[in-house]
């Protein structure tokens, strides 16, 4: 009897909770549909909500994103706000969890009634978050969410704020290599790829294109993420003496690959890493500063970039957070670019609401500190990454020509040891 009473009570509470949730959803949906927030009200703050991973697996990058958003808000407010409205950020932590991120955006939109919503960190969290934003008609600009699955959703409110979808970030290396005179191009290539939704497709995309251009593949292996020791894999690569090594890497494995290659005394003429080598502080620290020379990687923002607003961003960042340009995580720059786009739309249309932002960004080209951005209907950016190369201890853009600050160093010199 007691048990049955409890069951009934639980059912009743459950039903009530469902009902309440349903009401909240439909109420919020009705109230905010088609805009979320008014036009240029003048005076009332422009409230922007974002869920960011301040704890958990993505917390390092998540905090970098938070710094980027905050820096943009500070900069805009110092100049009088957007269309006279002060920007007010509401940032909540999702602990790197794809379920928490959904709850967070539902709360931001339905409870806090934020005017705009900015994206979280990583493809994993951006997919569910962008669905919530779509349901309530919010424009969704995300600094990190460029995996193929995001674009397969075909959301017209979504904009990935980087130069190109993640998988295509290696295209710039392919274009560089194929632009070289025939006798300088690599004849053979090895591919060592981390089993990862970012690294593998990126390296495979390069392989397809280089093979089509006649570069022979002499080694290709995918290694699991628990591979601690890269030496045997690199020994197999070295035994094939490839001209180029295309490494689909993240972080730890990227450093381990270089250390192993140095120990094995094998230095390929071209060495591309999808990630790891583009980290200005970590990379030389992990592999030894003398062993970075000539290694290339893709990047959107880089220290010393002359793209729109980059100098202001760099100065403001150093003033607020200290360090130097080399210590800025590119995730901060990408987050800052999200804000830049909102400023740009407001300046151009004299309006700052979700429908206007969605409509405006779907046409034309928008300058940011990551370069000029434009998007396909599904939010995939139409541009290209930059190729950066380590030269004398510095990470410099070397390709394409229009951003290059130094000539590419080719072939890659041997290891310092």
């Amino acid at each position: 009897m007691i048990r049955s009473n409890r069951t009934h009570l639980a059912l009743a509470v459950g039903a009530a909770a469902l009902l309440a949730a349903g009401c909240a959803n439909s109420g919020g949906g009705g109230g905010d549909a088609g805009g979320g927030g008014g036009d240029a009200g003048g005076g009332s703050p422009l409230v922007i909500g974002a869920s960011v991973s301040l704890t958990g697996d993505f917390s390092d990058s998540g905090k970098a994103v938070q710094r980027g958003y905050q820096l943009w808000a500070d900069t805009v407010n110092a100049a009088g706000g957007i269309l006279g409205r002060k920007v007010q950020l509401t940032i909540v932590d999702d602990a790197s969890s794809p379920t928490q991120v959904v709850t967070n955006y539902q709360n931001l939109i339905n409870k806090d009634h934020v005017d705009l919503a900015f994206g979280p960190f990583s493809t994993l969290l951006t997919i569910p978050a962008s669905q919530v934003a779509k349901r309530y008609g919010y424009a969704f600009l995300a600094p990190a969410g460029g995996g193929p699955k995001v674009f397969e959703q075909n959301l017209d409110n979504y904009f990935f704020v980087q130069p190109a979808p993640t998988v295509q970030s290696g295209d710039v290396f392919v274009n560089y290599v194929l632009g070289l005179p025939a006798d300088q191009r690599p004849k053979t290539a090895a591919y060592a790829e981390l089993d990862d939704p970012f690294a593998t497709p990126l390296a495979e995309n390069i392989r397809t294109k280089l093979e089509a251009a006649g570069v022979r593949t002499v080694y290709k292996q995918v290694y699991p993420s628990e591979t601690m020791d890269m030496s045997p894999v690199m020994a197999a690569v070295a035994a094939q003496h490839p001209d180029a090594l295309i490494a689909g890497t993240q972080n730890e494995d990227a450093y381990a690959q270089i250390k192993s290659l140095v120990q094995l005394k094998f230095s390929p003429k071209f060495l591309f890493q999808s990630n790891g080598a583009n980290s200005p502080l970590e990379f030389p620290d992990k592999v030894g500063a003398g062993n970075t020379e000539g290694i290339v990687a893709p990047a959107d923002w880089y220290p010393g970039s002359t793209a729109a607003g980059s100098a202001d961003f760099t100065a403001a960042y150093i003033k607020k957070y200290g360090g130097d340009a080399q210590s800025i995580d590119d995730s901060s720059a990408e987050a800052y670019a999200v804000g830049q786009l909102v400023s740009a739309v407001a300046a151009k249309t004299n309006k700052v609401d979700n429908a206007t932002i969605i409509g405006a960004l779907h046409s034309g080209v928008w300058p940011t500190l990551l370069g000029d951005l434009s998007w396909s209907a599904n939010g995939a950016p139409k541009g290209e990454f930059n190729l950066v190369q380590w030269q004398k201890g510095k990470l410099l853009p070397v390709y394409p020509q229009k951003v290059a600050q130094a000539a590419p160093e080719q072939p890659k010199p041997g290891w310092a040891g």
Partner: protein
Amino acid sequence: MHALVQGLILGVLTAGVYALMASGQTLIFGVMRVVNMAQGAMVILGAYLAYQLFVSFGLDPFLATPITTVALFFVGVAVQWVFLRPLHADDRSQLSVLVTFAVALLLEGVMSVVWSTNDRSINTSYANDSWTVLGYQITAVRLWAFLLSLFALGALYLLLNRTRLGRAIRASVQNPESARLLGVEADRVSAIGFGLGTATAAAAGSIYGLLYPFNSGSHYDLISRLLSIVLLGGLGSVGGAAVGALVISVSSAVVAATVSPVWSEMTFFVVLLLVLLVRPRGLFGSTVRGAI
């Protein structure tokens, strides 16, 4: 062929490090019937301590080993005293899995707060040195690590077989009741045994930090390997742990170099399963107690 031989060399040299970690693991099981899930985390703690001594004082990780082993010896004694001693002897083996796993998570948490979750690596001036012998590369750090492991295992052997303490430990393993009757203090021996086990983790940790980048979460990959090595060698057998380490290290390096890195992890488990099918107690596990 070149990749095969190079893989073989790498595998043999790396085996020393695994043997060191696994000898501590198997010692703890032998003395206390405790499956120590925290051994991997202890190795990483050892690596962080060596890293810190290197970064702050420029102390070479090999020279830092005496300091870190003593430090981790006391950490091990404390863990045994606080977390394991209260467990009843009857169900200590089962409960110890959960308790030591909790210790591993606790250590991981503490390490990520103290050193953040960024990857670390110990970059000494000789970290990437290697010698070319007949066209193959012998990496300096791996060779030193191999020699240090041999030295540490030798010291462990002497301690267990040539000292009073060693006799007390072995007596506790062979027959705890009789040992107690003859005046061996079980609690003290257990604490020292656990401390010795974690001290080997410290020595291995210094080397681990030289060989691989690591972060506070690196212990998960380690512990599954260590348990497999100990199972393969036979629970409680230090010699078995060394042979098990050689098998796992060489097989994974050779397969990764010649077949595929995906199969390298798999090969070892296939070997492990085959051995356990034929010899369920592992290669050197004895049917009677007392085979340290």
